C-alpha cells in the first residue's frame, strides 16, 4: 500500500479538452474521478500512513521520559526482542486469536444453520443477533467482569462453584477474556455466514436428498464448499480484529495474569511509563505482525476479495 498513488490535486481548473471529456462546462469524467478520490487518499495518508512512517523514525531514537537523548539505531528493537514481556504478550495475543476465532466460527456456523432452517421467528432472531455486536466492547467487558467476579459471583452461583476466582489466576483469566469475546462476536459471525447460506439454492439440497444424502453429508458436501468465500471473509476480518484485542483484557484484568495483549503493552509505553522510542519500536513490530497475518489471508482469498466487490454488484 506504500505505493498507493496519492492522487494529484492538479488539473482542478476547468476541464480542458480531455479525451474523455463529455461536455464543455462540467469536469471530464477522469478529472472528476481524481477529484472525488483525492480527499479519501489524503486523509488516509495523513492520519494512517504517515504515523506508521513516523513511528519507525521515533523507534530509531532514544528517549528518557519523553526527552530526546539521541540516535539509537536498532537498539530499541534489540531491547524489545529480548524483552520477555514482549514475547509473553505476543503469546497471549496469538492464543487469544486462535481460540476465540475458532470458537466463534463453530458457534457462529451453528447459529447460522439454526436460523437458516427456521420458518418462524427468523426476523426477530436476526435482530437480536445484532445486539451483542452493536454494544461497546467495554460494556461487554464490564458485564462479564462482574458475572465472572467473586462478588456478586453470578456465574459461580449458577454452577455452584463457591468462591472460584476466575479473573484472579492464570489460565482461567485468559479463559474469561476469550469467553467474553466469543459471546460478543459469535452472533456477528453467524450473521455473515447466514448471508452466505441464503445464497445457496435450495434445489441443490433437494436433489441431494433424493440421492439419499443425510444431513451431515449435505452439510459437508454442499453447504461448506459453497459457503467457502463467506467463511474466508469472516475469518479474515475476525482474525485481524482479534489480533488488535485491547478493550476486553484491559477492562477485565488490566493485563494481569498473563492476559497482556500487544496493544496493551504498546499503550503502556505511551501513557503509564512514557518512552516514545521503545513504544514506537513495539508498535512497529505489532504493525508488521498484524498486517502480515492480514496480507497472508488476503493473498489466500485472492483478488476476488477486491475485484468481486466492484464488479459483481
Amino acid at each position: 500500500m506504500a505505493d498507493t498513488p496519492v492522487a494529484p490535486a492538479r488539473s482542478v481548473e476547468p476541464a480542458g479538452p480531455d479525451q474523455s471529456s463529455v461536455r464543455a462546462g462540467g469536469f471530464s469524467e477522469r478529472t472528476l474521478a481524481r477529484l472525488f478520490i483525492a480527499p479519501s487518499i489524503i486523509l488516509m495518508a495523513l492520519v494512517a500512513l504517515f504515523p506508521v512512517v513516523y513511528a519507525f523514525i521515533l523507534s530509531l531514537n532514544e528517549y528518557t521520559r519523553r526527552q530526546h537523548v539521541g540516535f539509537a539505531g536498532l537498539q530499541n528493537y534489540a531491547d524489545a526482542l529480548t524483552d520477555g514481556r514482549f514475547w509473553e504478550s505476543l503469546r497471549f495475543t496469538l492464543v487469544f486469536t486462535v481460540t476465540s476465532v475458532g470458537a466463534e466460527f463453530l458457534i457462529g456456523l451453528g447459529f447460522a444453520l439454526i436460523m437458516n432452517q427456521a420458518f418462524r421467528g427468523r426476523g426477530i432472531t436476526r435482530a437480536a443477533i445484532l445486539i451483542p455486536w452493536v454494544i461497546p466492547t467495554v460494556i461487554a467487558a464490564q458485564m462479564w467482569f462482574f458475572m465472572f467476579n467473586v462478588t456478586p459471583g453470578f456465574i459461580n452461583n449458577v454452577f455452584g462453584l463457591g468462591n472460584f476466582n476466575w479473573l484472579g489466576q492464570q489460565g482461567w483469566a485468559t479463559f474469561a477474556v476469550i469467553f467474553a469475546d466469543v459471546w460478543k462476536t459469535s452472533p456477528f459471525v453467524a450473521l455473515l455466514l447466514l448471508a452466505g447460506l441464503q445464497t445457496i439454492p435450495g434445489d441443490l439440497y433437494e436433489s441431494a436428498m433424493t440421492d439419499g444424502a443425510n444431513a451431515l453429508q449435505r452439510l459437508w458436501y454442499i453447504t461448506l464448499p459453497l459457503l467457502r468465500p463467506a467463511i474466508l471473509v469472516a475469518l479474515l476480518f475476525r482474525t485481524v480484529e482479534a489480533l488488535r484485542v485491547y478493550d476486553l483484557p484491559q477492562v477485565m484484568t488490566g493485563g494481569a495474569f498473563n492476559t497482556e495483549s500487544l496493544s496493551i503493552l504498546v499503550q503502556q509505553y505511551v501513557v503509564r511509563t512514557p518512552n516514545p522510542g521503545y513504544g514506537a519500536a513495539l508498535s512497529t513490530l505489532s504493525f508488521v505482525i498484524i498486517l502480515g497475518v492480514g496480507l497472508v489471508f488476503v493473498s489466500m482469498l485472492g483478488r476476488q476479495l477486491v475485484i468481486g466487490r466492484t464488479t459483481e454488484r
Partner: protein
Amino acid sequence: MSDVTQEATATQTTGRQGPVKARSGGRTWARTGLLVIVLFWCLFPFFWLIMTSLKLGDRALNSPDLFQGPFGLDNYASVFEQNFHLNLRNSLAIAGMTTIICIVIGSLAGYALARLPMKRKILLLSGVLAVSLFPPVALVPPLYEAWRTLGLLNTWEGLYLPYTAFTLPLTIFILTAFYASIPRELEEAARVDGATPFQAFYKVIFPLAAPGVFAAAIIIFVTAWNEFLLANTFAPRNPEIAQTVPVAIAAFTGQVEFQRPVGIITAACVVVVIPMIIVALLFQRRIVAGLTSGGLKG
C-alpha cells in the same frame, strides 16, 4: 422449504393428511425452538445487567441472586452525578463528526471507484483494503507525539480525525457496492438529457444510494461510538472536555478505591445500551445489508 414440498407430495400421493401434518408441524416447532438458544445467548446478559443496575445497597448488589432487593433508580442518579451526560455529549459529537466526514468523503470515493474511469483502480482498492487491515495500536505512539506537539490531546478533533481515517476503508467498500448496484442506464439517461457527470452524480445517483448511505452511516457511528484504545490514550480524563462514553464506563470509581461500583457501572451500561438496542431493532435490515454487502468488520 424442503418440509413444505415433502408435505405437499405426501398429501398428494397418500392422501393421509393427519399424521404427516402433525409430524411436520412438530418439526417446525422444534426448529423454532432451536432459535431460543440463539435468543438466550444474545439477550440473557442484558437481563442480568438491567436487574443488577436496579439493585440498591451493598447487600443486594453483592448478592448473586438476581431477585434480591431492594430495587430503585438511585444508581441512575449517581451515574449522572458523575457527569455522565457530558461523556454522552462528547461521544455523540465525536461519533457524529466521524460519520459526517466519512459519508461525505467516502461517497465521493465510492462513486468514483464504482462508476468513473480511473487508472490503477485495482491498486487503489488494494490500498484501501490494506488500510482496513491496519492495527490502530500502530498509531498510538506516533499520533500521541504528533497530537502533543499540535495540542490535539484531549480534544474532539484528536479523536474524530483518526476515527475517520480508520472507518473510511469500510465506508468506501460499502458505498462502492451500493453505487455499483444502481443501474447504469439511469445515469446515461441523465447524460442524454444534458447533465454533466457531476450533476448526474448528485441529482440522480446520490439520492438513489440513500439507503446504502444510511446503512453505512449507522455502522460508522457505532464503530466510532464504541472505540476505546485511542480514546483511552488521547483523552483519558475530563468529561468536561473530551472523555468518551467507553472510557468513562471503564473508569468509574466507587467510594472505596480498587473496588468497582457494580451499581453505577451497570446503570451507565443500561443508559448506553437501551438506545443502541432500539436502533439495532429499528434498522436491522439496513444494517445487515450494509454489513454483508460491503465487506465487514467486527
